[in-house]
C-alpha cells in the first residue's frame, strides 16, 4: 500500500507541469495472488505487484491520454507530456465540456487487512481442504482462489481528490466425476466471509447428482436459472444495452424505448456502487461519485449509465460510471448490477416445475447476434439437470440456447429471496448480484455430446 498522501502528491507533481487547460490523473495499484488448481493439484501459483498511472490532458476540447507503470518522477512527467503532445494533434471532441468538479464521497469500508495479507500458503491450505473434500466423494477438482489488495486514486486540476483502498477475494470450484461436473463460486472483499467448505460441497454435490447424464432434445423448456447462470446473462445484457454508448448509437435494446415495457413485470435491474452488500466502490475513474441508476424497473426500460462525456451528449449529468481514460471512448458501464430479488426459494421453484431444466451456469455466451432484441447464445455447463414432477431427477447432456433475453425474462414466474455475488470480468471493482430465476420458457437450439 502506498497510501493516499503519497499517491496524491505524486500525481499532483506531474499535473503541476500545467501543459493544458485541464488535466486529470488516475492511479491504479494492486498486490494480488492467485492459486489455480486442476486434477486436484495446484498447477499455477502467481503473485503480482502492478500499478498504472493514466494522464488525460485537455487543450480546449482536445483530449490526449498517456499511461505508464513507472513511478519515477521523470517517467510520470514524461507520460504527462505525452498526453499533452497527443492532445495538441487531436481533433476536438464536441461533447467534452469540462473535467468533473470536486465532490464529496461516501465513506466505505472496502479493505480487510487479512485479505490483503492472505499468503500463498494460506491459499494452498484452503485449496487442499477443497481437494480433500472432493476426494471423499471420488471427485477431482479444478478452480482458482485469488486474494489481494488495491488502491485507486483520481486527481484533477479542478480540485478532485479521490482515494479508496480495497481488498478482494474470490474462489471458483469445478468438481468432476467420471461423467459429470458441478460448479460453485464465492466472492467477497473479506476472505474470511468465503465458506470454502460449503462452496466445495455445493460443487461436489452437483457433480455427483449429475452422473450419467441423459440426452434431451433441444426445444422450449421451463427452466430454473441458478444465480451464476442469471449473472452471466446479465453480464452480456449490461454490455450490449445498459451503457451510454450503445444507447446513444441506437444499437442497444434500450435505445428509443425508455418508459416502454420491454420485459416481464417481475424484472427489476439497477446499478448501485454504494450498496455495501455487494462489491461497493464510491467513485468512478473520473472521480465522480457513483449514483444508483434504475435500468429496468418492473419490466419498464428506465435508464442507462453515463460518464461525463456521454452525459453531455445525452443532456444529463454523469452517473459516476466512467471507465479508465484509455477506454473513455466506450462511455459509461454499469459495474455493480443488481437483479431485484423475489419471495421464492430454489426448493420452492423446483417444486413448482412439472417438466423442466435447472441450469447451474452458462459457458461462452455471445450477445452480438441481434443487439436490439438482446438475442444471446451460449452453452450450459457443469450441472444441467432435469426437473420432473417437482423434483430434481438427474443430469442432462449440455444444450445450446439461443434466445432473446427480453422475451425469456418476460416469462419470469418467480425469483429467489436470496441473491448471490457473482464475479464479472471487471473483477474487484464490482460484481453482479443475482437471485435464482424461474422462467416459463427458455429456448434451447442445439445439443452436444457430453
Amino acid at each position: 500500500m502506498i497510501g493516499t498522501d503519497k499517491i496524491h502528491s505524486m500525481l499532483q507533481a506531474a499535473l503541476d507541469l500545467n501543459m493544458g487547460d485541464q488535466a486529470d490523473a488516475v492511479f491504479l495499484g494492486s498486490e494480488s495472488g492467485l492459486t489455480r488448481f486442476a486434477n486436484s493439484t495446484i498447477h499455477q501459483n502467481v503473485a503480482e505487484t502492478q500499478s498504472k498511472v493514466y494522464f488525460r490532458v485537455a487543450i480546449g476540447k482536445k483530449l490526449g491520454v498517456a499511461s505508464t507503470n513507472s513511478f519515477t518522477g521523470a517517467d510520470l512527467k514524461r507520460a504527462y507530456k505525452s498526453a499533452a503532445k497527443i492532445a495538441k494533434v487531436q481533433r476536438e471532441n464536441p461533447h467534452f465540456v469540462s473535467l468533473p468538479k470536486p465532490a464529496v464521497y461516501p465513506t466505505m469500508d472496502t479493505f480487510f487487512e487479512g485479505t490483503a495479507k492472505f499468503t500463498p500458503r494460506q491459499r494452498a491450505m484452503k485449496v487442499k481442504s477443497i481437494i480433500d473434500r472432493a476426494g471423499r466423494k471420488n471427485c477431482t477438482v479444478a478452480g482458482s482462489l485469488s486474494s489481494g489488495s488495491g488502491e485507486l486514486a483520481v486527481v484533477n486540476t479542478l480540485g478532485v481528490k479521490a482515494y479508496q483502498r480495497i481488498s478482494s477475494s474470490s474462489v471458483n470450484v469445478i468438481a468432476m466425476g467420471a461423467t459429470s461436473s458441478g460448479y460453485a463460486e464465492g466472492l467477497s472483499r473479506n476472505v474470511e466471509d468465503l465458506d470454502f467448505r460449503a462452496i466445495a460441497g455445493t460443487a461436489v454435490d452437483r457433480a455427483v447428482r449429475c452422473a450419467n447424464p441423459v440426452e434431451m432434445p433441444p426445444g422450449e423448456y421451463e427452466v430454473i436459472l441458478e444465480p451464476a447462470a442469471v449473472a452471466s446473462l446479465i453480464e452480456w445484457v449490461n454490455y450490449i444495452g445498459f451503457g451510454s454508448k450503445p444507447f446513444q448509437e441506437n444499437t442497444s435494446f434500450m435505445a428509443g424505448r425508455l418508459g416502454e415495457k420491454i420485459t416481464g413485470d417481475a424484472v427489476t435491474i439497477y446499478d448501485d456502487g454504494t450498496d455495501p452488500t455487494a462489491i461497493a466502490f464510491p467513485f468512478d475513474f473520473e472521480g465522480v461519485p457513483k449514483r444508483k441508476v434504475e435500468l429496468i424497473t418492473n419490466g419498464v426500460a428506465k435508464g442507462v449509465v453515463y460518464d461525463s462525456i456521454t452525459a453531455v451528449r445525452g443532456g444529463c449529468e454523469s452517473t459516476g460510471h466512467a471507465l479508465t481514460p484509455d477506454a473513455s471512448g466506450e462511455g459509461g458501464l454499469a459495474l455493480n448490477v443488481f437483479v431485484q430479488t423475489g419471495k421464492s426459494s430454489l426448493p420452492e421453484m423446483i417444486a413448482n416445475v412439472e417438466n423442466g431444466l435447472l441450469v447451474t451456469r452458462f459457458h461462452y455466451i455471445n450477445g452480438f447476434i441481434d443487439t436490439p432484441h438482446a438475442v444471446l447464445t451460449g452453452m450450459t455447463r457443469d450441472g444441467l439437470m432435469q426437473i420432473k414432477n417437482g423434483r430434481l431427477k438427474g443430469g442432462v447432456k449440455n444444450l445450446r440456447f439461443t434466445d432473446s433475453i427480453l422475451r425469456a425474462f418476460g416469462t419470469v414466474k418467480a425469483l429467489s429471496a436470496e441473491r448471490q455475488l457473482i464475479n464479472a470480468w471487471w473483477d474487484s471493482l464490482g460484481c453482479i448480484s443475482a437471485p435464482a430465476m424461474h422462467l416459463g420458457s427458455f429456448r434451447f437450439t442445439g445439443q452436444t455430446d457430453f
Partner: protein
Amino acid sequence: MKDRLKTAIDYLKSKGASYGDIRYVRTTAENIKVTNETVDTLAHDVSQGFGIRVLADGAWGFASSAICTQGEMRKVANRALQIAKASALTQREKVKLADVEPYVDRYETTVATDPFDVKLARKLDLLLGVNKILTKGSKVRVAESSMDFYRTEKMFLSTEGADIEQVLTESGAGYTATAVESGEVQRRSYPNSHRGDFGTGGYELIERMKLLDHAERVREEAVALLTAPVCPSGPRTIIIDSSQMALQVHESCGHPTELDRVLGTEISLAGGSFLTLDKRGKLRYGSRIVNIVADATCPGGLGSFGYDDEGVKAQRFDLVREGMFVGYLTSRETAPILGERSNGTMRADGWNRLPLIRMTNINLEPGTAVYNDLLADSDGALLLDTNKSWSIDDQRLNFQFGLEAAWEIRGGKKGQLYKNPVYTGITPEFWNSCDAICNRDSWHVWGVPNCGKGEPMQTARVAHGASPARFRNVMVGVGQ
C-alpha cells in the same frame, strides 16, 4: 538491465531452485479509435517489469514486479520460491521439464516503416477519411475505425544458460459501419471485424490494406442489410470466407489442440478438449483435404516470433494431416507426457503473467480450388462473410457462429443478400463435410489480437492462415 537479470539468475541458483527463469518485458502501445468524426481513443502506454518463474520442491512458483531494481529482483525471487513451496503442499508428482537447447540469440521482427515513427496526424487523417466515406448518407449511424501498434522488447534468461533477446512489432487496423433504421441494426467491416486485421510488421501493413478503397462498398452493404431478408434456416451447402475460416480454425482446432486444455489444467475457465490423448493419430478430424499446421515461423503472422517464453525456438508442425488429427501445441512441462520435446508455444501477455500454451499461427493450408470456379460450381449455396458472433462449448464440439452477411450463389455470382446468418455444427462432423478449399491465391494470414485464456486473464495475439472453403449439409439458422 541484462546484468541485473543475470544476478537474479545466479541468486536463484544459489537458493537451490531446480529450475528458474527471468523475463524482462517492456511494451509500448499506441491505440487510436475514431468514432464518426470524433477521435475517442488516442492513447499511448508504456509498461515494463519482470517475472520470475521457479521450480522448487518439484512445484511451480511465479512472482513479478514493475520495479526493476536488483533489490526488488531478489525480493521477487524469494517470493516465487515461497510460492513454489506452497504449491508443493498439494503436489502429487514433481514437475519434469523436457530438455531444450539453452539458446543465446536475438530475434527482431522485420519492419519496413516503424509505426511509432509515423506521425499521428497522418494516422488520424486516414481514419477520419475512412469515416467520412462510411457516414455519407444518413443510415450509417456509427462509423468506427481504429489502428493499434505494439512493440514488445523481451529478455529471457534461465538457470540452464538461455539468454535470448527479442523485439516484436505488431500493427493492425480496421473499420466498421453500423447502419440503423427502424429498430434494425446491421454492420459491415473491413478487412475484418474485431478491430480489423493484424500482423507482425510495421506501418507498411496498414498501407497494404488500402483502407479507403473499400469504405464505399462497406457502407453500401451495411445499408443494404437493413432491408435484406433474414437468412433462411435449414441444412445448406455453405462457402465460408477466409476471415471467418480463420476464426473457425481458432475455435475448433486451435484451442482444442492446446495440450494444457487436453490435460485439464484450463478447466476452471475455458474448459477442456474433445481431442483427448487416445484420439491422436486415430481420429478422422476432417476430410482428406483438410491440413492444419502450427507455424510460428510464418512471415508476417501475428503469431510469429523467434522463441517462446520458455526459450524454445519457433517451429512449424502438423496438427491435422490429410484429415487425421496428429499433433498438439505443447510446452516443456506437457511435452514429456507425449515422449516429446516442446514445440514452442508458451507465451505470456506481459511481464506480470505466467506463460501458457498459446496458439501461434494455426493455418489451414491452401487447397486446390480456384475461387471463381468454386462459386460457379456451388449454385444455391450460401456465401457467409465476416464474423459477428461466436460461441463454442467447453470441450470445443458444439459451435455457433453469426456472420455479418450472406449471399446466395447464383450463376457463379453473389445473388440475394441475407441478414443475420448463423451456422452451427459439431466440430469433427463439420470438418468432415469440407469438400473444397481455395488455393493460395485466396489465402491470407488473419491476425486475431484478442485471444483470451488463463486466470488471471491473458490476451494473446495469434493468427490463422485460411482461404475460403466449402462445406456440405451444414445447419444454417437456429431452427426458429
